[in-house]
């Protein structure tokens, strides 16, 4: 009992994650807390049993005999097969619900968040929110389409409607964004830790990533797949702006397209 409460407390109160800056980040954090609580309960329980056994059942001086000859205990073994099976089943289903809410299973989505997927003209090989052709949205906002090109060792962002090329990703807060990504040379991965999403960017196989940023600010974009000597330096920034600022940025750049580096 103490163990369960302790585990729950740890799960709820130890924060190991950076700020959550997208709609799915808070969903993710919910999952993280659940997994962390279960993990903490299990780990502390086993630690307790182990330490207790080592102290209680250690051989004291003068003891020469053996321990008890217990060879097994069927009900007990069934118990500790069934309980973990139940727990992982719960965790699996729960995390699928979470994944669904993040847009991963887009066609099945009954999510309260705005997730959109784009209707892909050509084959899309994977990503989040990619498998659906649904385009409607609860808020009536269409996703901002952006094309991402990854190459050794930079990301390039292209806004097809305005035909802007940029080295930093600018996105409006509160509006869904849909990235269509492809790599030029080797496999890279697009990761924004504050959004809790990552997707490999693969040469020859376009992937998509849909998300809705929530908190204005500047967050790092990190390449997460080994791509060569400068892999560690392959970083960029995503700028989440208020929609008005975003629109100003768009219009400013449409007139004189420059690519920032």
């Amino acid at each position, binding site marked *: 009992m103490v163990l369960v409460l302790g585990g729950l407390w740890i799960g709820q109160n130890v924060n190991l994650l950076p700020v959550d800056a997208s709609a799915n980040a808070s969903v993710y954090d919910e*999952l993280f807390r659940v997994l962390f609580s279960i993990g903490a309960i299990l780990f502390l329980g086993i630690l307790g049993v182990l330490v207790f*056994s080592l102290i209680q059942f250690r051989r004291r001086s003068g003891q020469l005999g053996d321990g008890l*000859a217990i060879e097994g205990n069927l009900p007990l073994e069934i118990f500790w097969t069934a309980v973990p099976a139940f727990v992982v089943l719960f965790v699996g289903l729960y995390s699928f619900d979470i994944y669904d809410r993040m847009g991963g299973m887009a066609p099945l989505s009954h999510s309260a968040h705005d997730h959109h997927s784009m209707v892909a003209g050509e084959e899309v090989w994977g990503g989040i929110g990619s498998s659906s052709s649904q385009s409607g949205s609860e808020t009536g906002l269409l996703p901002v389409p952006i094309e991402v090109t990854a190459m050794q060792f930079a990301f390039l962002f292209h806004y097809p409607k305005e035909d802007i090329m940029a080295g930093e990703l600018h996105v409006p807060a509160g509006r869904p964004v849909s990235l269509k990504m492809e790599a030029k040379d080797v496999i890279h991965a697009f990761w924004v830790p504050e959004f809790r999403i990552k997707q490999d960017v693969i040469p020859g196989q376009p992937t998509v990533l849909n998300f809705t940023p929530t908190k204005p600010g500047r967050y790092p974009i990190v390449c997460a797949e080994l791509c060569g000597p400068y892999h*560690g330096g392959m970083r960029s920034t995503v700028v989440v702006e208020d929609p008005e600022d975003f629109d100003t940025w768009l219009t400013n750049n449409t007139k004189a397209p420059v690519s920032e580096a």
Partner: protein
Amino acid sequence: MTIAIPPSDNQHAERLQPTGWLRYFSFSVDHKVIGLQYLVCGFIFYLIGGLLAGAIRIELTSPISDFMPRDVYNQVLTLHGTIMIFLWIVPVVNGAFGNYLIPFYVGARDMAFPRLNAVAFWMIPPAGLMLISSYFITGAAQSGWTAYPPLSITTPAAGQIIWILSVLFLGGSSIFGGINFIATILKMRRPGLKLMQLPMYCWAMLGTSILVVLSTPVLAGTLILLSFDIVAHTGFFNPSMGGNAVVYQHLFWFYSHPAVYIMVLPAFGLVSEILPVHCRKPLFGYVTMVYSIMAIVVLGLVVWAHHMFTSGTPPWMRLFFTIATSFIAVPTGIKFFNWLATLWGGRITLNSAVLFSCGFILNFVFGGITGVALAQVPFDIHVHDTYFVVAHFHYIVYGGSVFVIFASIYHWYPKFTGRMLNEDLGRLHFLLTFVGFNLCFAPQHWLGLYGMPRRVAEYDPQFAFVNQLSSVGALLMAISTLPFLFNVVQSAFKGRIAGDNPWNALTPEWLTSSPPPVENWTGEAPLVTEPYGYGVPADQLDLAATSGRDLWTNGQ
């Protein structure tokens, strides 16, 4: 040198093979010599891999790339991973202990194919030397131990080809070993010994060898295709030639997920041998242990895509592999509960072997919990390819397999040499390793969650402090090797004489002299039907010592 006496021959015959220390450098067909060859050879590669790890941790004490050039860093991390997996853990938990122990456990005088066995071992040193020398001659491979194309196709070809060749050799060696273990366990059993009476390590090795034989050929085929892409400019995996880069990942992980079980199932087996002896209790739940090993083998073959959740994988695949992977935790969990139950109510001697085994239990449980978390697609999408994954698998591979290797050395050293290791140095070794290991790898979970990707030479300065902490832990781990090395060398000459069976163990390797004679037993092999017959049955508590259970019978 070339004439080997068939195992069934008279054990007192004059041998043509060298008999002194020289035989450890010869093409010996004695399974015990081969086992120790694997062990020592593996340990030398461990030291080299450890030096490379040291170089990585030095580079990472500062957020900028300053200790070595960036491409050298990638070579170093590729070599580190490849050496630790293919030249240290796989050969040692399988080849070293498998060769030494399996013939004893089945009551045989040698492995089924002694000469194949020697060939398998002698493929390893040249492959390892070739791999390492590539660094000095052409520059080593730079694409990580996973060698994903197209990166592995575009980095300098010579190093990558040498890498492929040596991994092919090592894989071949491992397949030969696997075939040999399967044949020995199934066909060389002493008459009267039933499968369900075998010590657990045999079951672990049987399961592991099945995995080796089923999955390693897939790796070999894949790497051969990859080498065609590199030298002959074919287009299997090269998108610019119309190939598919993700297919490589499927094929690679079809081997490499089972590979992680190839590294850890034998360790499970070894722990199952060590704990009952020092707890003076039977192994808890023998039958469920056997079934869970087999369940792990089967499930282990169908979970590979959990390494590819962020590659171009369709949603249904993500769903399937999440569930399959999570379920591996069930048989794995059974084994851990069984070990805890083995400890419970025992008379535990807290020596180095037990301490390392318990360290293994803790570390592995931790790594298993992060593993189940990683199996959840939405969780993994954030932390894939970050230091969180690095932490996960080091908890498993170092905290699990390497801890067990040390536990096993403490346990079987008296058998190998006839002398005891120094317990105080052993406990010091354990303390330094345990603290250093946790200091090195626990903080890396946070790094990954907070945004540090793996395989980088430079990183965001906010992570500098935690990386330095981790490097201090690595330094402690390096230091912890010193008491161990000193202990092993010094005890070989000066250690207390062990006697044949210092632990009063019942498994057959202890029912002969230490070190054992060339064909294991001078008389007939003992028939051990209850390898874990320790302990006092509850109703006989007072009759204790002798009448207890003298449960191995000699002869028929």
